[in-house]
């Protein structure tokens, strides 16, 4: 009995620890609950880059992170997924469309010279001078007409290239392409050797936004490979808040009905199960916060399901204990036997759940992963809480000796000694019995 009391205090310390963790650590909520955008970018192969390597992905990730910093969104997560994908999670984005446009742009700046095509038409030819040769760019205004322009400052290599190019092209136009679109094609009046240039927006000039976007993109750097958005998920903040509120209400209502049911059917053990359930929830939540698990809607569903599994463990144990009591065993033996015999069922069924969760976690999409993780954590904790917490409380409360009040277990007095007569089972055999 001394061990039982020690264990009880250990559980109490654990509970206090869990409450402290829950109070102090923040909950990580997924974008579907707080609102935000989740984008999946896929790197595209081109003629010059036939295969996407991990180097490409690293620099793509770097460029995307730069761009996000340029928009100035806090707490954005950029993650690599698989060989050629990036997941970008942007919370509280006010204009998802803009973010989307901004991320997908390759930001390729190219200077081109006029060329005579084979069929006699005029065309443009690459000069080798690109956005890579820039030191920085900024938005400024044209001193003559006050239009918005993009000022470029070349780095050392760029300055040399640009000087050489303008020397060759005096009297001819030089085209500036941004993302494959012709921005302007000014005629070069004289060689430019200072390493500065301006892009005007053609007739009518740039809108300020347009110029600003271009500057941000140029400063963040071009994407090393073209990337395409292949999946988008945006949740407005109200829907997220709604989902949290609804899930909370549903969870609480569900949980309280389950608790009432357990007490109505199992009486005093039911009360113990309810307390164990509360302790179980505290432990699971603090595990979520310690790891930390990002809670999504699917994750909450997984957690609610794991409550079902936790209750099931208690039900299995109580049914077995009641059976043993019906056979007229003493309380201490009945409780022990109930636990040991129910354990094989609990263990095998939970193992199969954990196997499923593992496979889901390895193969599933993000939604499925969140579900699998919370369900697996819940299932593991439920085994602990049923076997340690419930058993300990039962022993402490009921002690040893004969069952004097069958009503405590929801049994009738005449039921005792009336059940199936089975041979005494060796506990060790029952625990991990394999069918022979």
């Amino acid at each position, binding site marked *: 009995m001394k061990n039982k009391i020690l264990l009880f205090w250990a559980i109490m310390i654990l509970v206090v620890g869990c409450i402290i963790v829950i109070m102090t650590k923040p909950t990580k909520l997924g974008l579907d609950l707080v609102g935000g955008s989740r984008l999946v970018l896929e790197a595209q192969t081109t003629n010059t880059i036939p295969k996407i390597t991990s180097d490409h992905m690293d620099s793509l990730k770097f460029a995307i992170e730069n761009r996000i910093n340029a928009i100035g969104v806090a707490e954005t997560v950029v993650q690599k997924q698989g060989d050629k994908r990036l997941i970008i999670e942007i919370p509280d984005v006010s204009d998802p469309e803009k973010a989307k446009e901004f991320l997908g742009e390759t930001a390729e700046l190219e200077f081109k010279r006029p060329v005579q095509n084979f069929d006699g038409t005029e065309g443009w030819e690459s000069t080798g001078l690109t956005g890579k040769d820039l030191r920085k760019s900024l938005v400024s205004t044209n001193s003559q007409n006050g239009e918005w322009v993009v000022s470029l400052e070349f780095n050392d290599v760029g300055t040399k290239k640009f000087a050489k190019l303008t020397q060759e092209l005096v009297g001819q136009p030089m085209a500036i392409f941004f993302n494959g679109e012709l921005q302007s094609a000014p005629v070069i009046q004289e060689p430019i050797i200072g390493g500065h240039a301006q892009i005007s927006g053609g007739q009518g000039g740039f809108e300020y936004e347009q110029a600003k976007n271009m500057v941000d993109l140029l400063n963040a750097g071009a994407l090393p490979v073209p990337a395409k958005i292949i999946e988008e998920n945006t949740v*407005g903040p109200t829907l997220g808040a709604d989902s949290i509120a609804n899930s909370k209400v549903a969870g609480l209502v569900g949980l309280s009905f*389950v608790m009432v049911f357990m007490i109505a059917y199992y009486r005093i053990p039911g009360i113990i199960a309810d307390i164990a359930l509360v302790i179980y929830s505290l432990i699971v939540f603090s595990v979520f916060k310690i790891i930390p698990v990002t809670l999504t809607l699917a994750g909450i569903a997984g957690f609610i399901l794991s409550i079902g599994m936790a209750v099931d463990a208690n039900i299995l144990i109580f049914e077995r204990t009641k059976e043993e009591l019906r056979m007229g065993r003493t309380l201490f033996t009945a409780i022990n036997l109930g636990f040991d015999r129910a354990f094989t069922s609990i263990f095998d069924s939970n193992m199969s*759940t954990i196997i499923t969760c593992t496979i889901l976690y390895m193969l599933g999409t993000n939604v499925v992963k969140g579900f699998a993780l919370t*369900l697996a954590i819940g299932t593991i904790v439920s085994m602990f809480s049923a076997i340690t917490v419930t058993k300990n409380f039962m022993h402490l409360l009921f002690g040893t000796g004969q069952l004097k009040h069958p009503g405590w277990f929801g049994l009738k007095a005449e039921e005792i000694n009336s059940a*199936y007569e*089975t041979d005494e089972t060796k506990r060790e055999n029952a625990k991990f019995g394999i*069918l022979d």
Partner: protein
Amino acid sequence: MFSNAKNIIDIVKYRWVYMIVSLMLIIPSICAMGYLTMKTGSPLLVGIDFTGGTIIQYSVDKKLNNDDIAKIRADLTKAGIENPVIQVLSASSSADGEAKTNEFISVKTAFDGDKDSTKTSTVSTTIKNLYPEAELVQVSSVGPTLGKELMKNSCIAVLLAILGICAYLSLRFHVEYALIAIFTLVHDVLFVLGVFAFLGIFCNVHVDSLFITAVLTVLGFSVHDTIVVFDRVRENLKFAAKATTFNEVVDASVNQTLARSINTSITTLITLLALYFLGGVTTKDFVLAMILGIAVGTYSSIFFASVLLVFYNNIKDAKKMKSVNP
């Protein structure tokens, strides 16, 4: 051994009845899926998660009728959106403490992933013109190749999960127990898929990637339930007197675990029903799939798995008899 037990359910005696009930659950399901396969090429109506496409949802405060929807469709078509599919969902929200009914307009169009495509903003402008107070609640857009990949990965995940469970059960029980557990699981999953095929035919319900999660949960629960019954059979066989027949053991085991099976599904169903009626509108179908799965999983663990076990054993006995007295 089980002499003074009063059995609530006679599994062995009515085994044919239970078999027929199970067939009546499964055969219409298969028919519905077959019908949809012939009509659309897949056994369920699949959502944009699997086919690719864009769904944009707005919430509005006023009630919408069919004329409103026709107006939205006409305006969207005029704005250059090809074949928009418009649905209206009603949901009660309790975000600000008081319950109010919100209407959601959901617009489905082709995939909007190219950077020069401005579908989402076109749709937004059109909707805002009609309903200035409309609020964008959700956008999801999936590329067509990604959709196919998701479908493939989901199928692989389900098959691997089944294999994993099968391997584990073969280790812990006999191979035939594992196979029967798999049959039971297929029975349950077929039923859930079948109901959703019917919902697809009659209510135009499409399944998404959350649905796969639900199916996988049903799968886990089904095995969970079956294992509890089998575990009891295993234990009872071990300690049964030599005179008790296998059929008696199965009957007794099912009856001994009956209270547990029913109570567990009641408690799980309570939480799920709370989620269904009070939870978010986005997870309704997901929860419905689990409710169906857990109900049928409980039925099958009592009436289908045990019946299969009895059938299997009878066949085995018959073979043994034959080999003894040819």
